[in-house]
């Protein structure tokens, strides 16, 4: 096992830095998912036909955003957004800039998952909010979100794993991160051992993430 310590002595710092980059991208994009994607998914759910706040135009716009962003192959989205990223962030390269397209996807992915979960809440629950004369914000905050919380947490885990996978291609714009690290130092430079170790690190991180998500989600489920 000496080669491992040797490998880590040589590449450990770079790997940690790559992990930190991935961590940054994930944290920021998950924040976007929760702050923007969650309300967006709720909006699609609420404004759909028969929803608590039925509203065709709003529904169309929100739904369209999700669909369009999700339908872009991610690599192309990154490329497509370059001018926008440059306008907003001053540059289109580097970890920070690469996080912007990731946020767009994070919002869209999580919004769709949120909608899917809300659709599975038994209709009687919406009925309760309705007959109590809840305003839409009340229905959301007091009834729908609490009822869906277990699923929402699980879906956030799911989304973060997708995002980790997506972040891998951000090397295109110099985003860095652990996936890109595996690609560049492992694959492109034929350091198989380093590649496998890096992949193992990624897998372990994901398993941990999934485990935590699962546990929280089960604990929140009171049915």
């Amino acid at each position, binding site marked *: 096992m000496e080669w491992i310590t040797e490998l880590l002595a040589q590449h450990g710092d770079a790997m940690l830095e790559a992990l930190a980059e991935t961590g940054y991208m994930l944290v920021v994009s998950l924040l976007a998912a929760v702050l923007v994607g969650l309300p967006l998914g709720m909006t699609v759910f609420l404004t759909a036909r028969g929803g608590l706040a039925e509203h065709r135009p709003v529904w169309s716009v929100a739904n369209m955003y999700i669909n369009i962003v999700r339908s872009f192959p991610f690599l192309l989205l990154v490329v497509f957004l370059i001018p926008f990223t440059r306008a907003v962030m001053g540059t289109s390269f580097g970890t920070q800039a690469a996080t912007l397209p990731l946020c767009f996807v994070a919002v869209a992915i999580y919004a769709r998952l949120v909608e899917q979960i809300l659709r599975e809440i038994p209709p009687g629950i919406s009925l309760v909010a309705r007959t*109590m*004369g809840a305003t839409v914000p009340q229905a959301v905050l*007091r009834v729908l979100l609490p009822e869906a919380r277990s699923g929402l947490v699980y879906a956030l885990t799911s989304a973060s794993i997708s995002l980790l996978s997506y972040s891998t291609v951000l090397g295109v714009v110099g985003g860095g991160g652990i996936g890109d690290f595996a690609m560049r130092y492992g694959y492109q430079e034929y350091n198989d051992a380093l590649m496998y170790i890096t992949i193992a690190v990624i897998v372990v991180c994901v398993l941990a993430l999934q485990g935590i998500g699962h546990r929280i989600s089960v604990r929140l489920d009171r049915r």
Partner: protein
Amino acid sequence: MQASGAPIVELAAVSKRYRGADDPRPALDDVDLTIHRGEIFGVIGESGAGKSTLLQVLSGLVVPDAGRVTVAGRDVGALGRRGLRELRRDIGVVFQGIHLLSSRTVRDNVRLALQLSPRSERPSRAAQAPAVDEMLEFVGLGHRGGHYPAQLSGGERQRVGLARALVARPALLLCDEPTSSLDTTTTADVLRVLARARDELGSTVIVITHDLDVVKALCDRAALLERGAVRELFTVARSDYRSMPSYREQVRRELM
């Protein structure tokens, strides 16, 4: 006691036929009905007669095909989203299917109704907890406040639904089979709460039930629905819910 107040609920020629049902019979068939403020009104009829539909029409959850529904002076069919919301805040509903929130404890399920009540009438945060606890005691669930709905028995769930509808002391109370899973002791407790809501708060109560003892013990008047139509309207010679025997008493009398 015959109701004396002004009309609070008026149905004029209300009909409803569900779409998508391959059954041609209407759920409501040309219903005319007036219920007065302060009245306790029973709705009886066989299963499928249209009782639940009638209740849903009153809170705007089901839109009738024809006719006019007036509640508290407001034409329900003409209310916008906002108007409906305000109307519903004045109405307490006990569902036939109960529908508790699985993610909230019993106490928080009941408190929900307070949190959603009109701001002007909403008790302060500090006053909510005692109001909730008092109501839970009333339905005999003081010891279950911290439980989640999945941990309750069927009758316990029904009583939570009742507490939720009652706690905000609504002007109009719609109850769909509120005592269907309850023994007579608990039923008498529930009836006592309903009668008090009327006597002390002036609430109007509409109760759907298949149990004629409940009608006799509680209601001023009752309507018998048959195939969606009001077949008969009774003025009840009301006996007193206070005289309803306890369950043990009744068991002794009837089974021993």
